[in-house]
């Protein structure tokens, strides 16, 4: 179909009206260009957001007690209730489907004054009391020493693990922190480790980078909270449904703390699966939108090509008629018209694809492809799959654009050309 003669024939007709061909082609170029840019930007945001939540166990749930909202068993509503370690034991023994169960206590300093000191250097940071398995849910890299261990918990040792920023601000990044004593909220703790969050963007009551981490038992003694703590996280074991496990946990807690069965307000409960699913749907939505907008833009380009070609065919009635009289078969005419439309759209589309990809490559060079805390836009490029899809779409739209003009062209009989007006 595409031997040199045919290409010559096609090129002659396209080049005959350069401005018109160019403007027509621009519609398709623009459609593909926009599609590529949109897809790349969509990918960029997707990558950016994915990098924000990377490193955090996606099957983790949070359970935070709240004031009751329903009066029950003689208790008034608005009652304050607390979680304690016996709840953890009960959950562990009675509920299957939980991998890690991690109670947490936290201390905030709201007035903004420095509360953590080493020597004269200080900073304002939150404190968190955790069990060793905290590390299973909010994963962190150990930069120095170790994380909290079982012995720390059992002996309620006065030790602490510093978040990276705490270490840098209070001790100084050039100093070995191990064994140093720091003062936090008036009490001295020995530093046994420094950690950095794999992901500094997901924070449970503050990111761990800006937290002084204590053994939970030490925290309970230091702040006189007995065996109570503030909230807990748990991860769902493989093969169990997070939502069902959450309901079981709530039911157990309702029994143990005399909370009304219909009191949903007494718990603040959410899981990252929710968040992740939401993101997934969000991005699915964005993706669908992008394709609709992109294809829509492209379609108007295709309609443009089709439209112009219809006009061109009309103008060429006599020429096509003469060709027919000289022995051009209908298939030859169809081929020529289709090939014209194909060549025009493919050229325009490929240019659009290349320029779109090139521009996004430049943008990507500026944005970079390494995750960072404040960039929500990462590596905005289209994949090979999308590029192939775009190419297929270009070819299909070229064929589509050619159909109507081709049908119109073969309706021209040789006699139409001969008939003198």
């Amino acid at each position, binding site marked *: 179909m595409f031997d040199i003669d045919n290409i010559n024939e096609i090129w002659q007709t396209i080049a005959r009206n350069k401005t018109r061909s160019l403007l027509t082609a621009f519609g398709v170029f623009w459609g593909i260009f926009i599609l590529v840019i949109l897809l790349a930007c969509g990918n960029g945001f997707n990558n950016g957001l994915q990098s924000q939540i990377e490193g955090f166990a996606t099957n983790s749930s949070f359970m935070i007690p709240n004031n009751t909202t329903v009066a029950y068993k003689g208790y008034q509503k608005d009652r304050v209730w607390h979680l304690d370690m016996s709840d953890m034991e009960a959950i562990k023994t009675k509920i299957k489907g939980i991998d890690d169960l991690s109670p947490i206590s936290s201390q905030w300093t709201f007035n903004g004054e420095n509360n953590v000191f080493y020597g004269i250097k200080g900073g304002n940071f939150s404190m968190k009391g955790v069990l060793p398995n905290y590390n299973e849910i909010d994963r962190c890299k150990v930069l120095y020493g170790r994380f909290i261990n079982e012995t720390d918990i059992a002996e309620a040792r006065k030790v602490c693990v510093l978040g990276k920023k705490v270490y840098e601000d209070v001790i100084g990044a050039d100093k070995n922190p191990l064994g140093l004593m720091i003062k936090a909220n008036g009490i001295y703790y020995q530093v046994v480790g420094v950690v950095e969050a794999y992901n500094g963007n997901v924070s449970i009551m503050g990111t761990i980078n800006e937290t002084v981490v204590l053994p939970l038992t030490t925290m309970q003694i230091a702040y006189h909270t007995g065996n109570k703590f503030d909230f807990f996280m748990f991860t769902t074991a493989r093969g169990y449904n997070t939502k069902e496990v959450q309901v079981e946990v709530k039911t157990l807690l309702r029994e143990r703390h005399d909370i009304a069965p219909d009191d949903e307000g007494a718990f603040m409960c959410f899981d990252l699966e929710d968040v992740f699913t939401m993101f997934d749907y969000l991005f699915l939505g964005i993706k669908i939108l992008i394709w609709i907008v992109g294809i829509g833009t492209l379609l108007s380009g295709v309609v443009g090509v089709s439209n112009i070609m219809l006009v061109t065919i009309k103008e060429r009635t006599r*020429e096509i008629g003469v*060709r027919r009289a*000289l*022995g051009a*078969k209908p298939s030859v005419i169809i081929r020529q018209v289709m090939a014209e439309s194909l060549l025009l759209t493919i050229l325009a589309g490929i240019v659009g694809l290349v320029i779109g990809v090139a521009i996004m490559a430049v943008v990507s060079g500026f944005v970079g492809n390494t995750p960072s805390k404040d960039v929500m836009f990462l590596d905005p490029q289209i994949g090979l799959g999308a590029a192939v899809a775009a190419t297929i779409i270009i070819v299909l739209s070229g064929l589509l654009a050619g159909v109507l003009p081709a049908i119109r062209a073969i309706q021209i*009989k040789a006699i139409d050309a*001969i008939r003198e007006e």
Partner: protein
Amino acid sequence: MIKLENINKTYFGAQPLHVLKGINLNVEEGELVSIMGASGSGKSTLLNIIGILDNYDDGDYYLAGKLVKNLSENQAAEFRNKLIGFIFQSFNLIPFKTALENVALPLFYQGVNRKKRNMMAMEYLERFGLKNWADHYPNELSGGQKQRVSIARALVTSPKLILADEPTGALDSKTSAEVMQILREVNATGITMVVVTHERGIANLTRKIVHLKDGLIESIEENDPDKMDFTKEIK
């Protein structure tokens, strides 16, 4: 060469128009025939049917011994391409192609390769004294040159039959005479030729003049063009 038996043709429009009402005509191989008639007599329609550009309702049309009836578009295209050369009043050259490309076009549809077809086209252009004009576009040519190009285009496929529809209609008398001279020379090589015209002077240059009136053949006049001094009689 051409055998028409009781050809009928009606155009169905708002008012059905019975254009050809039973045409019987024989044209032998190598003949030079003109068809004359007032406008509306059906002469163009007849030429279109002979040229397989149009179909007919009734009767039989044999071209070179083959029945031409209810042909598919493809068959018709092939017949036209192989057997018939067309010459039109308004030349119908393709404006964005050079004289050479225009002449080579029918060969393109025959699938002749580029080199050979350009060579053949050049041969024919040379024959009609247009070698130096091969790379010119139609709008750079005079009327007579254009018609010579279109004659070259009609001949390039070595057809058995040339159909000319008012070949001199758009030309002045001097050029008309030249073109007719060329057509007569072409006919002398043995190619059958049918010319539609309403000019008596043109018709006088043919051996057989078919007079058409109201869709019927009124008379067929035998004529000896060699007795005519066509340079004076024309127009």
